[in-house]
């Protein structure tokens, strides 16, 4: 049978506790009983001494009837069972129970044995040995104590001459007292101690059970559940962090691990997953190139030889054209497969633009595109991979050329240095709730970036809200609208912990603010009032505007429909129909992302599109340094 660690722990600790408390109770009860018995022995001894001295005169005067009377009177006192006086031969001389008088007791009887065990009787014994506990005829416990009556000069000098001078002990006074009262008290205290012990065991076990549930079982089960869900492939799983102990550390480590896995998966889904597909495709593409060569050379060769048969020539031209399309698709796949980490060296963006323009000039001319270059002369060098940046420019130019309408169009390329305000430009790439849940939601993207998912409690309803992941921009995605001006409560959609920041108020409307944790112990704050639009990122505001290089490629084509904008940078998304592979902008996005830059697109249907690439400049004013060797683009 499977026993949980908690149950084993409980059984072990509970068993030890019960044993300890049980032993303690037993020892206490034993000690108490011994104390009570010795107390009773002492008082019985005292009583015995008192009886002896009070009957002394009567005995000396040999007033036997008075002695009988005295003994009977004492024997009737409460708590006293019986008082007897034996002579040396063991005959009962006086007794509170008259029927006993004259009986002879065996010297080996219990009361006598202590002194008479040896051949010659002892004359003096300690109190403990003189007393005995036994049950009387009614089965009640009683304590008996014997006291020897010593022969004194007054005894044998008395006028009755009952005793001779040569004996040392004349007889024995035997007093028996009842233990009923003491037994009642002992039983009651036994009951009390046992009750307390049971209570202590129950309380300890209960406390242990609760502690083990709260401190161990709950976090361990959360971990187990999290691991199980992770095993099922749910990378969004987070575990509430329960404290700063080892299990809390474990939960934190688990959350960090899943966050990294999710991040890795996010990157994979972005471009690298398709790079893997591309790599597979590249293997196929390579094989396809041989048969394509056969088709292309034969078809183009034949097309020139059948000029006198225009119909056939036209058909052959179709074969040539379509085969060349295949060639472009294969090249796109190969380019996509070849994505590598950027080799970042200082490079001159203008030079990269000029080389890219040289590569695509033919195609631009073919599409009757008028190209205008507005390249800033004072451009700072940027650390980037020149080949990859060239691919970015080529892709954007080809995209603009493809977007141009039949009759041609205008494309303008701008490079410039710029200062980028943090608001509206700096992406939030890490977002967590106070318990550490990852709030980034790759399923809902705003401007190509994973949004920040939070729960809004307002208008008596709760609804998920996907916050714009660009600091200071407010194109949030809201499932259920909430009346503007409502001060809502905001919480984590996973662990539901509140996101409100205590002690902060919106400087614009005075409402509370809520925030999410971002990189470096920082927080990004938003006003809790719906529609207020205040937000704050201390670190970015402190750092002020950051220098960037901007590359703008704009066309005056038909523009991009709004519903296409969120998908524009997704791999295999294409609006070009049969002309595109849907990889160009995805590759562009991936390259810019790998350079820590941003790419955004602004477009209105009928009014062209403008792509803006921004690359961070590490330091301002660095001169444009060595530009790497020019390299052929593509295959």
């Amino acid at each position, binding site marked *: 049978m499977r026993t949980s660690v908690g149950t084993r722990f409980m059984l072990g600790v509970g068993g030890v506790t019960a044993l300890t408390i049980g032993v303690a109770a037993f020892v206490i009860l034993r000690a108490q009983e011994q104390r009570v018995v010795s107390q009773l022995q002492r008082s019985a001894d005292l009583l015995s001494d008192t009886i002896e001295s009070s009957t002394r005169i009567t005995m000396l005067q040999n007033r036997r009837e008075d002695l009988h009377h005295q003994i009977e009177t004492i024997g009737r006192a409460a708590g006293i069972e019986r008082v007897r006086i034996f002579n040396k031969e063991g005959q009962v001389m006086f007794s509170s129970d008259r029927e006993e008088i004259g009986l002879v007791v065996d010297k080996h009887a219990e009361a006598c044995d202590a002194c008479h065990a040896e051949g010659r009787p002892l004359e003096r014994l300690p109190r403990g040995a003189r007393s005995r506990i036994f049950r009387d005829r009614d089965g009640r416990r009683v304590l008996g104590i014997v006291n020897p009556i010593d022969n004194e000069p007054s005894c044998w000098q008395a006028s009755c001459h009952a005793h001779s001078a040569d004996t040392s002990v004349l007889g024995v006074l035997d007093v028996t007292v009842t233990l009923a009262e003491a037994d009642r008290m002992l039983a009651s205290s036994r009951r009390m101690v046992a009750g307390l012990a049971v209570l202590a065991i129950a309380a300890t076990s209960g406390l242990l059970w609760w502690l083990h549930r709260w401190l161990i079982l709950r976090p361990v089960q959360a971990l187990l559940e999290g691991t199980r869900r992770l095993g099922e492939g749910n990378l969004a799983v987070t575990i509430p962090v329960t404290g700063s102990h080892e299990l809390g550390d474990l939960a934190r480590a688990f959350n960090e691990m899943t966050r990294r896995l999710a991040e890795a998966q996010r990157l994979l889904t972005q471009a690298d997953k398709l790079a893997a597909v591309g790599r597979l495709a590249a293997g196929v593409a390579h094989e396809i190139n*041989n048969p*394509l*060569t*056969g088709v292309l*050379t034969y078809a*183009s*060769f034949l097309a020139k030889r059948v000029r006198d048969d225009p119909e056939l020539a036209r058909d052959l031209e179709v074969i040539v054209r379509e085969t060349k399309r295949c*060639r472009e698709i294969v090249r796109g796949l190969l380019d996509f497969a*070849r994505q590598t980490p950027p080799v970042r060296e200082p490079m001159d963006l203008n030079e990269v633009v000029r080389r890219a323009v040289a590569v695509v000039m033919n195609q631009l001319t073919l599409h009757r595109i008028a190209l205008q270059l507005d390249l800033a002369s004072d451009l700072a060098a940027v650390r980037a991979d020149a080949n990859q940046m060239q691919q970015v420019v080529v892709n954007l130019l080809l995209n603009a050329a493809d977007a141009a309408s039949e009759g041609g169009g205008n494309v303008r390329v701008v490079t410039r240095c710029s200062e980028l305000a943090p608001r509206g430009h700096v992406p939030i790439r890490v977002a967590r709730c106070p318990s550490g849940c990852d709030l980034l939601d790759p399923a809902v993207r705003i401007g190509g970036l994973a949004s920040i998912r939070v729960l809004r409690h307002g208008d008596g309803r709760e609804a998920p809200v996907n916050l714009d992941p660009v600091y200071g921009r407010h194109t949030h995605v809201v499932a259920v609208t909430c009346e503007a001006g409502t001060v809502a409560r905001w919480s984590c959609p996973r662990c539901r912990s509140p996101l409100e920041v205590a002690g902060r108020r919106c400087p614009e409307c005075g409402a509370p603010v809520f925030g999410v944790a971002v990189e470096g112990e920082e927080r990004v704050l938003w006003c809790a009032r719906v529609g207020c639009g205040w937000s704050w990122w201390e670190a970015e505001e402190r750092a002020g505007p950051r220098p960037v290089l901007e590359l703008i490629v704009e066309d005056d084509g038909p523009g991009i429909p709004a519903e296409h904008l969120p998908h524009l940078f997704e791999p295999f998304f294409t609006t070009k129909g049969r002309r595109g592979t849907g990889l160009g902008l995805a590759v562009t996005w991936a390259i810019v992302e790998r350079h820590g830059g941003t790419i955004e697109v602004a477009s209105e249907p009928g009014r062209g599109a403008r792509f803006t690439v921004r690359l961070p400049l590490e330091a301002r004013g660095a001169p444009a340094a060595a530009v790497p060797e020019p390299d052929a683009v593509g*295959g």
Partner: protein
Amino acid sequence: MSEPRAAPCCDVLVVDDEPVIGACVRRVLEAEGLEVFVVPDATQALEVLARGRCRLVLCDLMLPDRSGLELIRELHAVRPEVPLVVITGYATAANEAQARQAGASDFLPKPFDDAELLAVVRRALSSLRDEGRPVQGRRR
């Protein structure tokens, strides 16, 4: 495919294990009056160059018996005066740079059409003419 032991004398030697490449190159170049000889691997290519003569080699980068780069190095070492053109289905800037370093004079990515092929071949042969060698293809 021709028998290499014939110690051929040709204008263009094509080294490619894909028959369709040899066939289509032969078709295009022979129409221009050039004599084409096709071998499927590096061993036979070296044999041809050792026994006979040719003015230009078109060579794939992936051959069954060794890498195209190795072949180019060996050919270049044996016959430095013969221009070597790489034809490959896996054209990258790195591949091209390596091929040129190994001694290739030009680089033609597959798939190509007849015009692209002819342009490369003419360029290679004209570089020979510049060095004072005969270049004119014999028309059949």
